[in-house]
């Protein structure tokens, strides 16, 4: 038995090492390439300093972060009440909701974007005499393109749905809501004060997945002609190889930092709970 356990540990270490090499080698090589100066045969942070000073860097990064925040907010505001209501009031509709939320998985992003373009082209012709015309224009405002938020909400639906569904499955939502109501909480207040705090981890997971998706999405933004961070990276990495790699590493680090912050938010709460007990 002891021999089997030590063999398993060995295998585990080997698999971890392989996975580590798989991720670390390309990253390390990229970092080395981005700081290498072949002319002077020394290290240089030129690519990074140029990158930080390049026009559009801050604007595109801010736009991406804003898009991520708004997408997460809209997604959670849409999904959480719908999923809680389905669980409590119409459990038979759960498969229907799951199917609807899974559809974006089987629709290619290009197809979705083509559809959006179709609507945006069709809109002005047919809605020019209605107040909706201004709406069509407003959602394409390059300062904050709401149309991208709509697209990202759709794209993130399958991931967010599964994360929240797992959280809802782990708590007895019906009993908790009824207990809260018998303590004098109205239905919305019961959901907000009792259900949502107990979904914290799954909401953070859903948020992290959505943020990762938004910060990494290129196709839709590029085709629709907007410049969030990914599109800016692609445009600015074309002329200078080193800068292109530096921008990829920077982008990766930004996504990691945001995800780590989201994860730390959950961990910090759990830590406080343990400390109090």
């Amino acid at each position, binding site marked *: 038995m002891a021999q089997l356990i030590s063999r398993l540990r060995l295998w585990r270490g080997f698999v971890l090492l392989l996975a580590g090499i798989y991720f670390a080698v390309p990253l390390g090589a990229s970092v080395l390439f981005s700081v290498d100066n072949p002319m002077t045969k020394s290290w240089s942070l030129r690519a990074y300093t140029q990158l930080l000073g390049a026009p559009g860097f801050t604007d595109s990064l801010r736009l991406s972060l804003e898009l991520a925040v708004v997408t997460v907010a809209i997604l959670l505001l849409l999904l959480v009440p719908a999923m809680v209501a389905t669980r409590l009031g119409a459990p038979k509709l759960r498969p229907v909701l799951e199917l609807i939320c899974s559809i974006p998985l089987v629709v290619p992003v290009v197809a979705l974007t083509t559809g959006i373009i179709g609507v945006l082209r069709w809109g002005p012709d047919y809605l020019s005499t209605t107040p909706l015309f201004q709406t069509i224009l407003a959602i394409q405002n390059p300062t904050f393109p709401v149309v991208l938020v709509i697209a990202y909400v759709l794209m993130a639906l399958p991931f967010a749905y599964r994360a929240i569904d797992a959280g809802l499955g782990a708590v007895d939502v019906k009993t908790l809501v*009824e*207990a*809260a109501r*018998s303590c004098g*909480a109205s*239905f919305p207040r019961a959901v907000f004060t009792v259900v949502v705090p107990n979904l914290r981890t799954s909401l953070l997971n859903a948020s992290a997945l959505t943020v990762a998706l938004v910060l990494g999405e290129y196709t839709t933004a590029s085709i629709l002609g907007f410049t969030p961070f990914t599109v800016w990276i692609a445009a600015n990495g074309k002329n200078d190889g080193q800068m292109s790699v530096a921008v990829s590493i920077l982008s990766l680090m930004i996504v990691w930092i945001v995800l780590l912050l989201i994860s730390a938010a959950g961990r910090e709460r759990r830590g406080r709970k343990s400390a109090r007990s």
Partner: protein
Amino acid sequence: MTTTPLNAPPTGVPLHPGSATVEFRSLRRAFGTTTALDGLDLTVHPGELLALLGPSGCGKTTALRILAGFETHDSGEVLVDGEDVTKTPAHKRDAGMVFQSYSLFPHLTAADNVAFGLKMRGSSKSDRRKRAMELLELVGLPQRAEHFPHQMSGGQQQRIALARALALQPRVLLLDEPLSALDAKVRLNLREEIRRLQQDLGITTLFVTHDQEEALSMADRVAVLRAGRLEQCATPSELYARPTTAFVAEFVGTMSRIPAYRSGDGVEVLGRRHAVDGVVPADGELDVLVRPENVGLTAAADGGAVVVGASFLGAVTRLTVRLLDGTEVKVDLATEAAALLPVGGNAHLILPDRPVLVDRRVKSGQ
């Protein structure tokens, strides 16, 4: 009804929940083709603990949930102190509830759970804290105030849930099988504790259970439900001693059926004539229903019965006796007396000299 405050708490507001009258009038509720409540009429008196007892699907939980405001009824009325609460939402019904599954809010400590209702009501933080500590004291768990539900046992969680239900001083306390998820010893302790608290506070309590022992030991009155209808509502002793229907007789305690025949206005059983408690069904074959402790048994070589089994229950031993026609009858005897009747021995069965309950014969397999 007035009750004496349990103690003088530091908040200055006595722990003094209400004691309302609850009435179900011709209550009906169907789920699709299944009728859960079929014209339930029942009154719960102020300050009493009434147990709703019955098999699964008899409608007891539905009645409780309708009173709590978590279910709606198709017709009939639910009155609390004479006021129809049908249109009152659950959070305004002034009814504290303890659920079968542990229903404490996992993200809150015991004290915060107890104080939750007061927070909803807008009480100040210091008042909430004081009241929560009083109630934790009341259920004997002040030392668990800062513990989260996952750090407590099932019994402790249910006691906290009880404290939470009492925090708002409700007019009615609703207990939905609160002990069924607990192990036997904890269940016994908590049963006594709930009863003590209920009596001290004098709060009108509706207690749903499928456990007859629980119902008989805790309740002032027990309402036995069957298929959405009230079969009988009486004190535990009356229900046990004088069941009005065969269903109640067999559901509450143990009963044996012995074939009987009509004889005038009574029945003949095992060669003797007996008066009947209630009415004799006009047609069909008959059985009489007898409790094990009401049947006598003596050793007799030609007694017409054979002892086929014995279960030791402590001071009493329950013997199973088979009659000539194959009918099996349970008989409770003092263990010393039962020792004189070994399994395989012949015996003579004696029925009590009192009116017997009669029912249509149940065919085997029914």
